């Protein structure tokens, strides 16, 4: 005859709070019979689910009666213990694998995921279709709400300048923004903005051509999308949602490109200028000027200049590269004096242009 196990047992039926105390009998079959003063019942082993371990006791549940509880002592006879559902510690496959091995595998997967996430802008950015970027840019910035300066002569001169540095069929959209800072930005969706401060600061149209070519380079080399993705990733990480005009604009302006991207944009600008017979010397003297300013000047407008320069490679290095590109060549003027003046007075003479109200928020 087979052994019959008797184990002290406590159970709750899941319907009331009454505690049933008695014994669990097992005769080797597929059911466990619970016998006590307050009632008896049979439970299929297959119905039992491991609950938890608590202070020297094991708790089992029933899948058919979720709130049923069977409490057995921890030191069960081996035969009965093997029949009961196995203990779970960390849950599912971590238990099967072991903590150490699971931690190593999960750690490796996490490092790979982080690496993928961190480098995603670099390889994903250039692969985003340009039409998507245009739509995104349209959704994000639109037409800047009438804050771009327009005069017929100025628009024509700017279009002529743009044609020299952006020979592609579908041009980027360029505009002069009514902002006094010495800065220029490439916005998502192939929109390039020269700030009026930079226009006023420029001494020759070649300087403007250099800066415009550089920003067009960012658009054409898909740096904007890359930077946007990086910014987006950062904002997910920091969960920082910024609001307001100024933060958005400065957020976009300060998106920051890598130094390689800056060099690529410069190379793009020099190539286009060489093709269109535009002198790179203007750009060179621009960089020399702001490079000098950054060192000497500390007050007023110089801060804005430093802001632009700081995210870029050393301006003197860049000036040298532009000068080198001019060696042994002669160039015609890119714009007539009248055209240059038309761009310079665009903001002054546009009656409808709106102010950038940075103080609104």
């Amino acid at each position, binding site marked *: 005859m087979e052994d019959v196990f008797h184990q002290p047992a406590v159970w709750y039926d899941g319907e009331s709070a009454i*505690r049933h105390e008695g014994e669990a009998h097992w005769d080797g079959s597929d059911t466990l019979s619970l016998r006590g003063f307050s009632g008896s019942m049979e439970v299929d082993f297959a119905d039992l689910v491991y609950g938890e371990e*608590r202070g020297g006791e094991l708790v089992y549940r029933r899948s058919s009666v979720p709130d049923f509880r069977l409490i057995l002592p921890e030191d069960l006879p081996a035969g009965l213990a093997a029949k009961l559902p196995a203990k779970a510690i960390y849950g599912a496959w*971590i238990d099967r694998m072991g903590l150490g091995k699971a*931690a190593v595998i999960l*750690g490796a997967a996490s490092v790979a995921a982080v690496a993928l996430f961190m480098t995603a802008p670099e390889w994903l950015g250039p692969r985003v279709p340009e039409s998507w970027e245009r739509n995104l840019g349209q959704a994000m910035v639109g037409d800047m709400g009438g804050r771009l300066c327009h005069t017929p002569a100025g628009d024509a001169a700017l279009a002529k300048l743009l044609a020299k540095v952006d020979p592609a069929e579908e041009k980027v959209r360029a505009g002069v923004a009514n902002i006094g800072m010495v800065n220029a930005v490439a916005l998502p969706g192939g929109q390039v903005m020269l700030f009026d401060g930079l226009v006023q600061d420029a001494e020759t149209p070649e300087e403007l051509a250099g800066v415009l070519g550089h920003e067009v380079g960012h658009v054409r080399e898909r740096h904007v999308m890359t930077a946007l993705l990086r910014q987006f990733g950062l904002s997910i990480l920091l969960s920082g949602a910024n*609001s*307001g005009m100024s933060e958005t604009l400065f957020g976009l302006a300060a998106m920051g490109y890598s130094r390689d991207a800056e060099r690529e944009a410069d190379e793009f600008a020099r190539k286009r200028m060489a093709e269109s017979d535009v002198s790179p010397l203007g750009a060179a003297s621009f960089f020399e000027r702001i490079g000098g300013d950054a060192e000497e000047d500390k007050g007023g407008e110089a801060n804005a200049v430093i802001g632009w320069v700081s995210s870029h490679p050393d301006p003197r290095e860049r000036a040298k590269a532009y000068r080198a590109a001019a060696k042994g060549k002669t160039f015609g003027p890119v714009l007539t004096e009248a055209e240059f003046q038309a761009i310079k007075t665009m903001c002054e003479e546009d009656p409808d242009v709106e102010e950038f109200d940075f103080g609104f928020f």
Partner: protein
Amino acid sequence: MYQEDIQADSAFGFDGNWKDFAKIALPNLLLTLVTLGIYRFWATTRERQYLWSHTRFVDERLEWTGTGKELFVGFLLVMLLFAIPVFGIQFVAQALILRGYEAAGAALGILPILAIFYLTGVARFRALRYRLSRTRWRGIRGGSDDQGLGYGLSYMWKTFVGYLPLGLAIPWSMTSLWNERISKMSFGPYRFESDADPANVFARFLLFYLSPIIFFIGAIIAGATGALAGYGLGGEEGMQVGIIGITIFLLLFFYIGLGLIAVAFYAKFYREVVGSTHWKDLHFGFEASTMDWVKLLIGDALIVVFTLGLGFVFLSYRHWKFMVTHLEAGGDILLDELTQSTTATARHGEGLLDAFDIGAF
């Protein structure tokens, strides 16, 4: 008839120890790190299983039946239903502002703030409901049939009204919200009831409310006295030393003194609200004095500092133990009448609460 008279002994007991808890908390920390935080839902569940199973109410231990998966699903739901719409609204608000519709953009930007205010209340309610519905005692659970949506509105207007009379109605809003929340919860067949009276905590609140004003006046007098005393002792230089001394004293008061008074208020508040809570013929009590709270918080700080931050994993253990050891209950329970709860159970966890990082109480 089974009847428990629990007045003889403390109804709640805790028999866990920090070494056993460390065996859960430290592997949890490791797995959370290598999964970039995803494991934390399962980690929370394992911690609660330990804490609940080492907590005794009368003659039986509690049991936590929540799962990591449901917490994870709750978190994903919040991300889907809340975080993404908020992100979208922010995007649209920005686009509106950039197009020149500042007012519309700003109004739209306020929407998520209102939503967060409302959902904070809903989250508090649902977290308590979730925790009760996942707690078993003798196979019986708690819960609520209320979704907490109405409570969210109460939370908004009561909090707002509480601040209206220069913040003097805050004790009313706090106790009233406690009463409202608790009275909608049940365990087994019976509802909880609470009739906490703001009048009982108002004196402590006034202490917190008035002390900065009294101290400000005192500070001016003390500052003048300190300066004069310093002047008397060491002329001009002495005056400066006197002023610096008083400033340091004031800063210490501001952070430590006001903090202490705030703790004194919360200690009184929890004694009042828990002491006013009933469940059928059972009444509860919470006996932690201000000194107990101070010791808890100083202990927390010391543990975290001396373990270089690693000790934060023990804080949930300390807080739970603090709560259980100071919780009292008296009265009768008729176990025959104590049947299973019929409340609906939420299928997903405390996602909202998790997202806003607030506790159930």
